[in-house]
């Protein structure tokens, strides 16, 4: 219980730290939301000045931060300059869309990476391993951006998949099955891009971790006891190799909200990514801070999950008292 409490406290401190630093960075970054209006000849300096005042942009940083904290205390995340409205509802819907995408991608990536990594580790130095190594190396070389674009071109050329968005224009008119199919078709490309970019890293880590255990004495001992190969690999080796993999898993949960920024941009997936990037470029301060806080919360949860899993998977840590 005290363990949980301590993690919670740490999480709160982390959130405070992140919010303060984000505030700080945002002030250090040159320009502000109103700069674009500066280039609009229709808008006079007087109007700009009054807008600045309205948005508190000429107030000192601590004042703005205090205001924001106060708003958060009242369950609001601040106000979007660009959208002229509260931040929280803006973020919620997009966070949901992002999660739909990244969660699917993450599960799929792990589901693929585990057998591939283990197989590759088992056949270390043999043809399958080499083939997998080459494939992961190649995938790693291809930048995520180019990968996503390549998939898009493929979609455009072949016409098999839609080239972006989350649902078709006529989504509302479809049957339930049609809707599901439509969503799946739209998800196929971004998920593929995310899986392909995550896969090489996962496979390599899993391979490295499992390969280490395959030569371990306990593994040979278990072999000598005639435990079937499949069980050996998926239970003994995997379980023993869990430690680094759990860290990685915690990380992939933690980055669920932020991992897909580029892919969302390219595939015009209505997630947090495009919103945040646009907000950063437009200096829409509170949207950015809100978004960062959202992803921080996920990161905290991911780490927490990772710790819990580690605690569960490695009894040695457990007996050490969990004092970590």
């Amino acid at each position, binding site marked *: 219980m005290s363990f949980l409490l301590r993690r919670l406290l740490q999480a709160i401190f982390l959130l405070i730290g992140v919010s303060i630093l984000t505030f700080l960075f945002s002030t250090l970054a040159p320009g502000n939301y109103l700069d674009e209006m500066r280039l609009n000849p229709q808008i006079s300096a007087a109007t700009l000045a009054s807008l600045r005042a309205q948005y508190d942009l000429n107030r000192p940083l601590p004042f703005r931060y205090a205001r924001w904290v106060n708003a958060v205390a009242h369950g609001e995340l601040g106000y979007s300059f660009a959208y002229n409205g509260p931040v929280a509802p803006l973020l919620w819907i997009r966070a949901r869309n992002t999660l739909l995408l990244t969660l699917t991608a993450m599960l799929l990536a792990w589901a693929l990476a585990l057998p591939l990594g283990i197989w590759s580790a088992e056949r*270390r*130095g043999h043809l399958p391993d080499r083939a997998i190594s080459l494939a992961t190396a190649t995938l790693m070389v291809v930048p995520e951006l180019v990968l996503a674009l390549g998939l898009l071109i493929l979609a455009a050329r072949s016409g098999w998949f839609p080239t972006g968005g989350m649902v078709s224009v006529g989504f509302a008119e479809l049957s339930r099955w049609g809707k599901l199919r439509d969503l799946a078709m739209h998800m196929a490309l971004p998920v593929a891009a995310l899986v392909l970019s995550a896969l090489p890293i996962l496979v390599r880590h899993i391979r490295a971790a499992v390969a280490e255990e395959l*030569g*371990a*004495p*306990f593994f*040979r*001992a*278990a*072999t*000598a*006891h*005639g*435990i*079937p*190969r499949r*069980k050996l690999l998926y*239970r*003994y080796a995997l*379980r*023993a190799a*869990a430690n680094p993999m759990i860290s990685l898993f915690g990380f992939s949960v933690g980055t669920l909200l932020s991992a897909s920024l580029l892919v969302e941009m390219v595939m015009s997936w209505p997630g947090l990514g495009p919103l945040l990037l646009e907000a950063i470029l437009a200096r829409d301060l509170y949207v950015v801070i809100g978004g960062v806080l959202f992803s921080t919360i996920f990161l905290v949860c991911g780490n927490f999950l990772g710790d819990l899993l580690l605690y569960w*998977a*490695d*009894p*040695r840590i457990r*007996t050490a008292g969990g004092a970590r």
Partner: protein
Amino acid sequence: MEKWAGKDLFQGYGMTPLLEVQDLHVSYGAASGKSGVALAGVSLRLLAGETLGVLGESGSGKSTLAAALLRILPANGIVECGAVRFDGRELLQCDAREMEKIRGGRMALIFQEPSQALHPALRVRQQVCDVLAAHTDLSRAALRERTGRVLAAVFPTETERIARSYPHELSGGQRARVLIAQAICCEPALIVADEPTASLDAETQMEILQLFRRLREEFKLALIWITHNPALLAGFADRVMILYAGRVAEVGPTAEVLFSPRHPYTQALLRCLPPGLGKGYVGRKTKLAVIPGVAPVTLRDAGRCVFEARCSDRMDACVSGEPELVCVAGKQFVSCVKYAG
């Protein structure tokens, strides 16, 4: 002179051996292309219920022998030639599935270093249970029940606590007992124990040895007991085999090999025992100059006696060819030119 080869050696025994190894050659390949020979023509026979002690210094091929018998050599280990007949089956010809059945089933291996031979993140009960599950089709309940019985056999007290523990929560001796439980749970005909007590203190060693004695009786076990400590074999093994550089230096009944060794190597080996253990060999503790990496062993055909360089009784004949095992007295066989011809 009787040759140590083929069946003739056991004619006197008058029964089919449980395990018969013939002319086993094992080498380790390195990706650099060179390969090293770990076993160069080892042959042995074992009867049901018999205990064979295998004695040798580090690097003599003891562990390779154990691994080769169960075909769990590391990926770069290759059985070059030879035959391993066990229980009427040619093991080197079995497919992977058959081998899985035999390992831990009819033939079990007990690893050295009990602290590392157990999975660090699984409970003891689970690890024993997994072995049982691999070889039987028992229901969950039956598996659990039998696991409990097996554990009770090695841990008369505190059975339940130990069953629930993780390996790192146990003492060295307890871990060794868990390994034994894993090995005996499917009532094998043969257990290969690779220095099972090497890392234990003397008292625990004795306890484990005691346990083995009991189990040997109870389950009619044949045992191959690999060790570098001759003291453990006295009064425990039926016969002793001395390995040197992947070759059998000497083999014979325990008492004869330990108390009247013929091979210069055996003699040297026993000379470095602590005083008071072997009578007649109490002397100055002469430490063997073990030079790792001086390796006539990497050669398949050394063309000379592999011990020649370190031998105190060197003769000219030592370099003229590899000596063959010859019978010197009763069931005692030695590979040394001194006794040849």
